[in-house]
């Protein structure tokens, strides 16, 4: 069969670019969100003012600048990014990790236990909290990884089940903690918290804390492992074509188990950072925070790459921070959920765009053939 040249139109080249498609999808989500706001009779401009304030700290209505908003958005992004990395990492190895939520909860629980019961040594206290939160998440994810690798247990099923196990286990444990009632424990000692005085000074007392550095570190670690090391190479090969990887001697079983453990560690760290970064007391949770599930969307929008997930996670954090501002401007805060939902729906359009691309390709070849 005659192969034709590989030079499509400009549009086709753009459609073949994943980053472009992601941006297009986000814009589409905002466009439809804007129309919805207009339809219910509110001013879409207010929505964008709120988002702009969450992005830059400027209040366009009175011209005042408050950096707290800006950094609050970044702080909100931290768990989104980490749970997104969890989903993305497993996804690159060909797994669908729906368990970020459970891994996050377990990380949070372990963080609370150590925060209240651990030795109160400065720095070492919160550092050990984050390390053990990551390890707990790694175990929680790794269990599913080992079951998948050794016994072909679907990771989708096992991670969902462990989400619920994590939730109720967390309640049981946290209720035993000092000063616990049905929704909170005693306050943390100062040494447990991630507060960064420098950040507080510069950001007008935002919640941004040391967890931010750990998130950045994880993004870089993700990128480095995946793109630069032999471990990541083997994992990508496993994700793309498990059979060929196996036939080439790549340790597929190890890669699958390990990738779920690493994924779990990202989400567990997220749980730890939220526990001792955003709160001053341990929470006895009765429902899921939803960061784990939003992480799926974050990873999908970010194409499961490190930097893409960072950008998408920031977008989700931005929208979350903008919610309160929207309410003060008479925009229902639920519009942010609608926009997030629309973005996920439009992400599914990716394959639709591929079909469009194929169609354009076909038209072009027909034209060439008829010459």
């Amino acid at each position, binding site marked *: 069969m005659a192969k034709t040249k590989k030079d499509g139109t400009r549009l086709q080249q753009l459609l073949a670019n994943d980053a472009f498609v992601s941006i297009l999808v986000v814009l589409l989500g905002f466009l439809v969100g804007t129309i919805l706001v207009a339809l219910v009779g509110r001013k879409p401009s207010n929505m964008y003012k709120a988002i702009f304030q969450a992005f830059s700290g400027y209040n366009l209505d009175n011209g005042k600048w408050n950096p707290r908003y800006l950094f609050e958005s970044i702080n909100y992004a931290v768990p989104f990014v980490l749970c997104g990395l969890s989903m993305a990492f497993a996804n690159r190895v060909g797994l669908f990790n729906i368990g970020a939520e459970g891994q996050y909860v377990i990380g949070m629980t372990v963080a609370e236990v150590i925060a209240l019961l651990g030795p109160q040594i400065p720095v070492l206290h919160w550092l050990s909290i984050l390390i053990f939160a990551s390890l707990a998440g790694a175990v929680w994810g790794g269990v599913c990884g080992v079951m998948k690798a050794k016994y072909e247990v679907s990771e989708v099923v096992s991670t969902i089940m462990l989400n619920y196990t994590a939730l109720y286990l967390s309640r049981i444990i946290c209720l035993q903690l000092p000063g616990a009632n049905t929704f909170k424990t005693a306050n943390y000692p100062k040494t447990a918290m991630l507060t960064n005085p420098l950040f507080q000074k510069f950001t007008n007392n935002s919640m941004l804390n040391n967890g931010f550095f750990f998130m950045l570190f994880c993004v870089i670690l993700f990128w480095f492992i995946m793109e630069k090391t032999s471990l990541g190479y083997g994992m990508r090969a496993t994700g793309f*074509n498990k059979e*060929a990887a196996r036939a080439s001697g790549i340790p597929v079983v190890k890669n699958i188990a390990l990738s779920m453990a690493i994924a779990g560690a990202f989400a567990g760290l997220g749980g730890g950072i939220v526990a001792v970064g955003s709160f001053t007391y341990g929470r006895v949770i009765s429902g899921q925070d939803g960061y784990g599930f939003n992480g799926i969307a974050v990873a999908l929008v970010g194409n499961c790459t490190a930097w893409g997930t960072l950008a998408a996670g920031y977008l989700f954090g931005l929208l979350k921070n903008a919610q309160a501002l929207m309410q003060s401007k008479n925009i229902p805060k639920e519009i942010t959920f609608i926009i997030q939902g629309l973005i996920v729906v439009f992400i599914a359009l990716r394959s639709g765009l591929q079909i469009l691309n194929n169609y354009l390709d076909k038209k072009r070849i027909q034209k060439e053939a008829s010459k």
Partner: protein
Amino acid sequence: MQEYAIQMEGITKTFPGIIANDNVTLDVIKGEVLALLGENGAGKSTLMSILFGAYSADSGTIKINGKVVDIKNPNVATELGIGMVHQHFKLVHNFTVTENIVLGNERTKGGILDPGSAEKRVKALSDGYNLHVDPRALIDDITVGQQQRVEILKVLYKNADIIIFDEPTAVLTPQEIVELLEIIKLLKEEGKTIVLITHKLKEIKAVADRCTVLRRGKVIGTVKVADVSEKDLAEMMVGRAVKFEIEKQPCHRGEKLLEVKDLRVDTALGLPKVHDLSFELYAGEILGIAGVDGNGQSELLQGLTGLLPVQSGSIKLCGKEISGMTIKERIKNGLGYIPEDRQKHGIVKQFSISENSALKDYYTETYADKFGILDFGKMVNVADGLIQDFDIRAGEGSSTPAGSLSGGNQQKVIVAREIYLDPKVLLIAQPTRGLDVGAIEYIRRRILAERDKGMAILLVSFELDEIMNLCDRIATISKGTLVGTYNSGEISEYEIGMMMAGSKKEGDK
């Protein structure tokens, strides 16, 4: 004036990125056998799929018996009397022959199935065309050749006048091929019109009246088979002169590198697909394993490479027992493997050529430092060298994704990688399946060159020609065990055919 059974005029069909059929015109005279010849990917199957209603053409018209028709789906084709014998049989294995034939077309008496009348009709058809198929036999219990006859009966049962055979001999032993050709002749005598899709020239010479040659989606010409030689046909197909035989240096046998003894490999379901299988393989020789597809070839190779666990027996590579080793250890010890299913086991389509060429040794010093950080520049360098050496045609050099290469170039990437790793023993399965003639010639020459350098090569192929041409010794596999090993030249194609079918010959070496 000749009467045409099929007239396809100006058929064009495009797929994303390719033109499968480019303004193809095909006429089939009533009652003739027309061969449709072309290399893999020339557009034969697409054309016939359009005729059978599986695809719709972008443009062009189809006339059946002089009338313009619109074949929207295979049911329309069946109503028009067109039947297709598929390359991959579509049979339910735990059903009887009759049940398979009436499937979707069951006769009932008062709402209750009436197998009796159908069985009678199947019997009558089977006898009428000398097909010798027992209507009550289970598909599982009959041979592949007979399964194919069931497919033919299916078509006849639906009163087809035009029968399309899609590569019908690919899965048959030489004897079965002879019988099939007889059946085709008989069908023709009974007035059926037959289209035979094939790339085997011998068969065309044996049964076809005319031959239409396709190359790269275009009709090159239609010839009377009696007027041309096999060589002429081959040249029309490929578009240049072809050499049939490969020049081969005499074999210099070295030390024993691989010794397999009483090997048993089970499938995932626990069926012994390979049992009591033993052979030895020496440096500098090619041992061929001939046999019909499905007689344990895949399981043998998977057992040797470690993809399937070995139940019992031993595999010694250079004197070292490897049957308990992981796949990685076996590769490290010098076992190379060119797999049968290249897209499944051989390459990662999303990876570039350079990444694919490092697939088996990416973690070694060649590419990685002691912290496991990869040197992608080195990968590119190695791949660039291989692209040069092996004449791999890639649009964007070593950064081309392997998935966008043609089948022949994908295979070259795999062959290049395996030869670059310089294994002591190389296992090769179906190295040239689905490739064009140029790539076939090239890959065969490379295999021979490695043999001359002292590599021990095990070649598994369903193409008897390939085995006969390349191998120094030929073993035949049947029902999971080797039934005879001979030096090349000591055994004829016919004798191998007999062994493929399971009859053992005395006095093997």
